[in-house]
């Protein structure tokens, strides 16, 4: 079998239309929205603030906590049960691990930076959209960072390598999904998950595709932060 044309009609290395916006939650210390195709993630950052209960504190550096949540009727499938689930806890954890290498919390010993990611509409690629939004929100909150983290899902459908899988592709029987987060400046990868069967050579090609896609995403992230400053000044 051969996957000759994508369900969405896109090219194999084409991303869905994407946009980013900063300062969407007024009461938060930092916030951002990242939309890719029909997936919309809103991230808000609170802190650094004192961490309780006290035994969770690390006196040498601050703690990052990420909370991932899909809104009840955000997906095309069944209603998502509100509250934490096995899946949301896992994604919260991988988001935290994806962001942590690029943020510097050494000045905030004993404190916590809370990141809340809400997915108000989903069509696959939610953890990547969440990471993109969270990176922007952390920068907006003034947290010291080594780079903005960009994330995208790459994979393989039947015999073709694809970039930015939507729900139809994600749930394809003969498919591989690889969400990937990286710093485009240093080339370091902080998230790489995978399901399905794929050869080493193909994984290498997927990573290369992701790198190119992340560079495009980063451009939009940078533009959003710079434009926000301009907009604030014009108000």
């Amino acid at each position, binding site marked *: 079998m051969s996957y000759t044309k994508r369900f969405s009609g896109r090219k194999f290395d084409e991303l869905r239309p994407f946009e980013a916006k900063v300062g969407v939650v007024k009461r938060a*210390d*930092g916030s951002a929205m990242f939309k890719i195709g029909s997936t919309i993630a809103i991230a808000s950052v609170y*802190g*650094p*603030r*004192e961490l309780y209960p006290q035994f969770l504190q690390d006196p040498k550096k*601050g703690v990052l906590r990420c909370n991932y949540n899909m809104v009840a009727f955000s997906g095309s499938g069944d209603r998502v049960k509100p509250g934490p689930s096995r899946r949301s806890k896992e994604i919260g954890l991988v988001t935290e691990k994806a962001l942590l290498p*690029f943020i*510097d919390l050494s*000045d*905030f*010993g*004993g*404190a916590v930076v809370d990141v809340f990611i809400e997915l108000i509409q989903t069509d696959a690629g939610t953890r990547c959209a969440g990471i993109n939004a969270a990176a922007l929100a952390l*920068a*907006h*909150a*003034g*947290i*010291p*960072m*080594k*780079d*903005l983290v960009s994330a995208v899902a790459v994979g393989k459908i039947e015999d073709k390598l694809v970039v930015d899988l939507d729900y139809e592709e994600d749930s394809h029987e003969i498919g591989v999904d690889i969400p990937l987060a990286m*710093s485009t*400046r*240093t080339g370091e990868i902080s998230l790489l998950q995978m399901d399905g069967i794929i050869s080493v050579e193909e994984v290498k090609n997927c990573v290369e595709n992701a790198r190119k896609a992340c560079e495009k995403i980063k451009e939009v*992230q*940078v533009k959003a*932060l*710079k434009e926000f*400053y*301009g907009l*604030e*000044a014009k*108000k």
Partner: protein
Amino acid sequence: MGILVNDKDVVVPGEILAEGMDFVPSGDVFRDGEKLVSGRWGLVSVSGRILKLIPLSGKYVPKRNDLVIGTIENVGISGWRIDIGCAFSASLLLRDATQEFIERGADLSKFYDVGDYVMCQIVKTSGPKIIDVSMKGPGLRKLGPGKLLKVAPAKVPRIIGKQGSMISMIKEMTDCKISVGQNGIIWLVGEDPKKELTAVDAINLIERESHISGLTDKVKELLEKRK
């Protein structure tokens, strides 16, 4: 090679500001091999060979001798905890609290109660969690009821203006009492609520347009229009 940005450019974390060894990194700029990289969202400040950033957001980082405005958070047995807008609350010890004599076992809430606003000075910081403030010194006092505004600490110098020109203009034209803390917290009170709102708008205008030159004229125009 050389510098890649201009003075007062907006930069984002991870942006390369200069290449080569001609420039020296300072405050929120770090060196990564041959490159100088921005570590925060902020405005570039180039002074000679030194590159640094003026952060556009973020919590206040306490510095010794800073005059700050805070809210009493808790009354303890030997002092008070004060929220000064940074990650941790500051402590006001009994000996630094007042010139008055405090009897053993006295009710400390008679001096400063929870929710009171105070103007205090940071006397000691060691590590992120230990911040000691004092109420002994000129201008340090309990502030009484009023409005609290929060602005980015980096914008405080612009709100005060050269030798206090900006803030005294707002005070004169709105008949408000205004105190500005270096932590970005501003306390203000006026007899006329309309004038009070005008002062708030003027401060918000300065915060939004702090990087634009000719700001004094713009603020003056706003104040005269609303008079």
